[in-house]
């Protein structure tokens, strides 16, 4: 990876590194609790699915009131009706209700991890020109956090006796691959990452309107703000206003009709 020579900020760099290390410790303190909450959701879902939960089968996002723009930043098509989407969810992943949403979330997180890896690989191969060190740190940290998010959601699935999702959201991947093909520099990659982060955040916001399990709500609520934090820093690095809206929206949210594989 090509790193531009930068102005020496020796003391500040040391301070920042120490601060970052403290924050990493804080993160590792938070992670076990979140995984426990996710597992709690998985356990409750398992018993739930054996009982009256069957009534909810195929209505994953019914009643959410969400008619979303579906990956607008990535040039994906408009959303289908919620009822239709949830019906197809059962066909796509074999899961219904909250678990179909969990599988979608895991697949989006896996896609984010893979896309950041592709970006890091391209940078390392010198395909993006000079890469500022702050961008390297951003990509590595964001990727690590998306990996944690995927683990949390997969913990729910395995806790419910289902298989973890190791694949990605193929519907979004198609557009990501197309966009990635034309990325030649860091701003291009940052814009692609921004689309992914905003799409993930929008999906979590939509999920909060759809998920029934309190533990699932808590997990989605704890991840959505972090995706928006990634987006804020990306906007800043791109020279855009970092917090452009007073209210987050579901524009660009994915639905459970997406193909996962």
């Amino acid at each position, binding site marked *: 990876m090509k790193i531009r020579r930068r102005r020496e900020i020796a003391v500040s760099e040391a301070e920042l*590194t120490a601060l970052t290390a403290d924050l990493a410790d804080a993160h590792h303190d938070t992670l076990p609790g979140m995984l426990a909450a996710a597992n709690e959701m998985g356990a409750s879902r398992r018993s739930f699915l054996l009982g009256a939960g069957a009534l909810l089968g195929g209505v994953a996002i019914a009643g959410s009131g969400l008619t979303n723009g579906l990956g607008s930043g990535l040039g994906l098509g408009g959303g289908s009706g919620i009822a239709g989407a949830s019906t197809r969810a059962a066909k796509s992943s074999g899961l219904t209700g909250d678990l179909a949403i969990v599988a979608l979330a895991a697949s989006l997180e896996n896609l984010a991890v893979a896309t950041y890896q592709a970006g890091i690989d391209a940078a390392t191969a010198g395909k993006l020109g000079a890469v500022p060190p702050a961008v390297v740190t951003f990509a590595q940290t964001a990727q690590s956090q998306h990996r944690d998010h995927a683990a949390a959601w997969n913990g729910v699935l395995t806790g419910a006796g289902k298989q973890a999702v190791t694949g990605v959201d193929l519907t979004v991947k198609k557009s990501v691959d197309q966009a990635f093909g034309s990325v030649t520099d860091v701003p291009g990659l940052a814009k692609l990452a921004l689309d992914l982060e905003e799409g993930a955040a929008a999906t979590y916001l939509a999920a909060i309107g759809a998920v029934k399990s309190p533990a699932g709500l808590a997990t989605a609520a*704890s991840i959505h703000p972090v995706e928006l934090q990634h987006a804020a820093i990306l906007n800043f690095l791109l020279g855009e206003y970092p917090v452009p809206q007073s209210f987050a929206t579901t524009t660009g949210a994915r639905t459970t009709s997406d193909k996962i594989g």
Partner: protein
Amino acid sequence: MPIDDPRLRDLLEQSQDLHHDAMRATHASLDELVELGHDDRRAGHRADVQADSQAGGEVPSSVTTRSLLSGLPTGGVLAAAGLGTAMVALLASPAFAGKTADVQMLQTAASIENLAVATYTTALGLDFIGGGSANPVVKAFVTKTKDQHADHAKAFNAAVTRLGGKPQDQPDPALLKVVEQAKPSLTDAGAVVALAIELETGAAATYVANVPQLANKNARAVTASIMGVEAQHVAILNAVQALVTAGAADLIALPPDAAQLPAAAGSVGFPVAFFSTTDARPATEGAL
């Protein structure tokens, strides 16, 4: 407060356009909330509320039961339903309406937003934040963030009103003490940013904690649409604080000279993968 830099002004105008789109969506949630509130009042008993919930409507019965009955022994489905019916009869009376957990959480949220507006207003009165010696990006950020908190306060108070509660125009009293104690020490940008991080983190943590607790789906939607924005404020403030602390305040610019930013500046904004609720304020703290 006028923003002098043309580039910043353009960005803020673009942001305003996005904001209007988002406001339309939020108003839609609030409008639904009004309709559902009317429906609830017409229904007047829990059975109808449960039917609404099962039909994809409002107030999930299990959540409401949990928040109202926590700590009480359970006696099976019928026992819970009987007590629930009684509680709904209580809730239907105007005197009790403002005391529901949802209303209290929304009132506290509004009070936190009121405090944020007041604090940023105070900060803008300081020359190094809102005056001639201020970094223009910091000044623009504080101005815009104050306005966003004012939007949030309006949204929370609209939700409070539409659920039958009393809107909150006062700041959160516990946090107000923190701000008042901090005021004498606000002698440089770093101190102001540190205080702002504390307030923004508390706000975001409170809303993250409230989302799974709110029974009313639309109150939850409004809260959820705001929590991530507060987290974004935290991210940018974290980055600003790191640069100010490092003596590199000149790198706070739009666009920044990314090549000059220290490596750690890329990740200091988002320290944890899961937003913690450790700093959440008690649900009733601002429900005056």
